[in-house]
């Protein structure tokens, strides 16, 4: 009677590294040399190539260089049609936002940073005391019902879009209520240089949070036009790039790659989808030691034979 033969399971057991012959190796000296090398290289590269410092776009820059864009953006905030006005969480409830695999992550995050897009225009105007034109326009705006406000803003926005170069001075005659006056006051405030302050500090002495200024600026075309001219746009591999010829972020190549190809390049949920994909790939990388096939690639493509060639030679000989 024979015993049942169990199938042999071959487990590779990696030997203990402490069982090998050793030789002297000065770790501290190696570290000091590494520190000298990295410090030296950093200083030399910094000295030769420096670093970019393109100045921020101020509201005054925006108003001076692209006044039609400022006006169109301001009217869009009042009409509720800008990107921020229709964004959804964390700023408002205007949209459900992005979802991935049926998970409405953006909505579930909640409105944790509420911003009223109309207030991006109205609050600075209200804080600007003393200007009779502004006060009258605001009074007229406040006297309208919300439906009337939206209708007037939408009508003026449409008229601006039809005007040559979006120039407010060439808008077709019509009844746009207080919109032209509000837009004009806002443009003047922006040109004066006071807009960031009233958006960032919002009545307090100390600012620090640029959310409102950035949302307003991002609602216009000026910032994006500047970025696209610098190859920093989302569909230009922009996440990897830097202004001019400066080094960018080469390590972001895979993250930005997905935005360049379908289905992500045409998807409304691209951000959430790419994020989930990259989380999955990162998890894959992290769990590599336990993933069959992937963890065997180093055995199939034996670059390691170069690393340990002396060792293999000694073992054979």
């Amino acid at each position, binding site marked *: 009677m024979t015993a049942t033969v169990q199938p042999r399971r071959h487990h590779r057991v990696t030997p203990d590294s402490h069982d090998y012959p050793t030789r002297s190796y000065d770790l501290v000296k190696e570290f000091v040399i590494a520190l000298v090398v990295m410090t030296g290289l950093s200083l030399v590269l910094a000295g030769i190539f420096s670093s970019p410092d*393109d100045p921020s776009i101020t509201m005054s820059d925006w108003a001076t*260089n692209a006044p039609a864009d400022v006006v169109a953006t301001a009217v869009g905030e009042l009409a509720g049609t800008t990107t921020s006005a229709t964004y959804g969480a964390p700023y408002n409830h205007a949209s459900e936002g992005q979802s991935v695999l049926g998970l409405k992550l953006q909505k579930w995050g909640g409105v944790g940073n509420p911003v009223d897009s109309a207030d991006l225009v109205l609050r600075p105007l209200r804080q600007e005391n003393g200007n009779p034109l502004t006060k009258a326009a605001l009074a007229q705006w406040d006297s309208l019902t919300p439906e009337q406000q939206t209708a007037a803003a939408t009508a003026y926005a449409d008229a601006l879009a039809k005007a040559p170069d979006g120039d407010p001075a060439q808008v077709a005659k019509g009844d746009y209520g207080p919109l032209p006056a509000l837009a004009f006051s806002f443009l003047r405030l922006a040109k004066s240089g006071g807009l960031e302050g009233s958006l960032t500090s919002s009545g307090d002495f100390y600012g620090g949070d640029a959310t409102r200024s950035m949302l307003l600026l991002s609602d216009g075309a000026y910032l994006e036009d*500047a970025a696209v*001219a610098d*190859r920093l746009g989302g569909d230009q591999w922009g996440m990897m790039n830097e202004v001019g*010829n400066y080094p960018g972020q080469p390590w972001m190549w895979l993250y930005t790659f997905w935005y360049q190809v379908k289905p992500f390049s045409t998807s409304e949920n691209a951000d959430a989808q790419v994020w989930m994909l990259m989380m999955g790939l990162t998890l894959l990388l992290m769990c590599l030691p336990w993933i069959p096939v992937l963890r065997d690639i180093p055995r199939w493509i034996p670059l390691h034979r*170069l690393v340990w060639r002396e060792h293999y030679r000694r073992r054979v000989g």
Partner: protein
Amino acid sequence: MDSVFSAGKYFTWGVVSISATNLLIIVLMVVVFVLALVVPFPHGQPDPPPVRAAGDDPHEEGQP
């Protein structure tokens, strides 16, 4: 709108677009990686066996 800023030099093949600087960095990294694998590393041999002090080992050379 006139852009104050200007983009650097870029290479484009189909959907791929990469700055000259980034491409150079990546190429250099690959070159350095290959060099690290092939360039010989000094002191690759295990140390020779230590020389024992006299009297420790009866099989030591020089002992009667």
